[in-house]
């Protein structure tokens, strides 16, 4: 592997990593406030991607215009999911797996019925060019996706740290009962979290559809990636998720550059297992209260 190939893999992996961060945040926020694993997470993103694809092929608009539309389109589902999660029996860590596994299959089948099994891609010409920078060839689509993802993550960071609802969400995910006793309406904070997370998922979906082919069962892999990142970074820790996302993107790109795409999924699965064994913090720490 030449030095140039290596640099190329590092940069494009880091760009992809920004997208991973966006995707994982939605998962980790819901885990934070509900202690529930949302296994339908990736399927929601794929659904957002399909919606984006459908609007794009119908209207021919620039994909970036469709990003907020897909984000808004998932909001009704956020309320439905919140309603269902609210009714989960204890222990929630377990019953959420059963519920969301079912929801995941349901979403996959709905998408299969609506869009059949064909692979779809938002192949907008505005995103296909590439830029040369210091001897590196940067795919324009990846640059745009990374910039959009970073912008959304940055806005979320400001919202969570500077606003009242953001503080309410953070306190709720740290300790639901203590937050409630301090006057925070934790039910409202939970609902807001679902709305935000689903909006992020819709946004992530459209961005994803410009990078990868969509197919109805494609969400499983995204869910897996979100779980890996959450284990690495810990629940609700925004900066760590950003670092972990970029790291994952780089590791993946290096794997692909070194051995071709064959090993990609295997490596990600191995990373999941390794990180579970290596870290007793992360995911577990979010539950420890």
């Amino acid at each position, binding site marked *: 592997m030449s030095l140039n190939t290596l640099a190329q893999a590092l940069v494009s992996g880091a760009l992809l990593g920004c997208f991973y961060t966006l995707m994982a945040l939605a998962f980790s926020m819901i885990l934070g406030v509900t202690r529930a694993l949302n296994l339908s997470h990736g399927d929601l993103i794929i659904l957002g991607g399909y919606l984006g694809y459908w609007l794009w092929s119908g209207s021919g608009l620039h994909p970036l215009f469709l990003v907020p539309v897909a984000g808004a389109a998932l909001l009704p589902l956020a309320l439905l999911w919140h309603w269902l999660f609210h009714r989960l029996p204890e222990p929630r860590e377990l019953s959420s797996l059963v519920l969301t596994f079912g929801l995941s299959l349901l979403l996959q089948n709905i998408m299969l019925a609506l869009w059949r099994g064909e692979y779809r891609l938002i192949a907008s010409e505005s995103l296909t060019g590439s830029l040369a920078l210091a001897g590196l060839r940067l795919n324009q689509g990846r640059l745009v996706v990374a910039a959009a993802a970073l912008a959304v993550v940055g806005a979320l960071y400001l919202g969570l740290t500077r606003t*009242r609802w953001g*503080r*309410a969400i953070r*306190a709720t995910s*740290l*300790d639901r*009962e*203590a*937050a*409630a*006793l*301090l*006057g*925070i*309406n*934790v*039910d409202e904070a939970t609902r807001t979290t679902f709305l935000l997370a689903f909006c992020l998922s819709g946004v992530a979906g459209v961005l994803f559809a410009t990078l990868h082919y969509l197919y109805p069962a494609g969400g499983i892999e995204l869910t897996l990636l979100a779980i890996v990142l959450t284990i690495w970074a810990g629940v609700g820790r925004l900066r760590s998720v950003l670092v972990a996302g970029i790291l994952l993107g780089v590791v993946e790109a290096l794997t692909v550059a070194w051995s071709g795409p064959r090993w990609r999924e295997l490596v990600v699965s191995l990373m999941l297992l390794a990180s579970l064994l290596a870290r007793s913090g992360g995911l577990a720490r979010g539950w420890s*209260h």
Partner: protein
Amino acid sequence: MAFGGLLALRGVDIAVEEHQVVGLLGPNGSGKTTLFNILSGLLRPTAGEVWFAGCRVTNLAPWRLSGLGIGRTFQIARPFAHSTVFDNVLVGITFRSRHHYRRVLDRRREAERLLAMVGLAPKASARANELSLGERKRLELAMALSTRPTVLLLDELASGLSPKGREEVIRFYGRLKERGLTIFAIEHSFRVLAHVADRLVVLDQGTIVAEGRPAQVLGSPRVMQAYLGEDE
């Protein structure tokens, strides 16, 4: 109050008068914390009612009760561990008392005042998980006060503290009472409450076994029996 087959509280009828200090005693597992969980809205009772200032408040959400003026601490202090002491106190001020302190500066001043009151001002910028047990309990007290309560539910403030720490807790009870707060306090050891409480209630296995003025209650043989070998 029942947890599955376990009756944690049964036929408990307690009235706490305004501006009084009422102590709740009882051996481990007698249902004291459970009663506080119901009063603060964290648990829904399977039977019975809660009244506060003339209103029925059974099953109200904790943040509503906090809004009405009920504050509490946890037996095992649980501040937001990775936030600073100062930020911990600011949470309640921001969410509960914001109408009283519209400007950020006023809120910060109120947080400083509360920290000074519990003697934690020098630790304001420490992280909550760096505090000692006694300091954590004092932080909890400041957090409970940050919601401007009229009634404070205090769960074993003195437990696990050194004799000196206990003395300090007793002084705190006195000071809170002077400020006109109504206090309902659980202590495992009756020595802490004997001097400050206006009234004591003793629970055993979920029922009230004694109730009255401290001297009366502590002299009762039934209480000594419930506590046999329990007091440290």
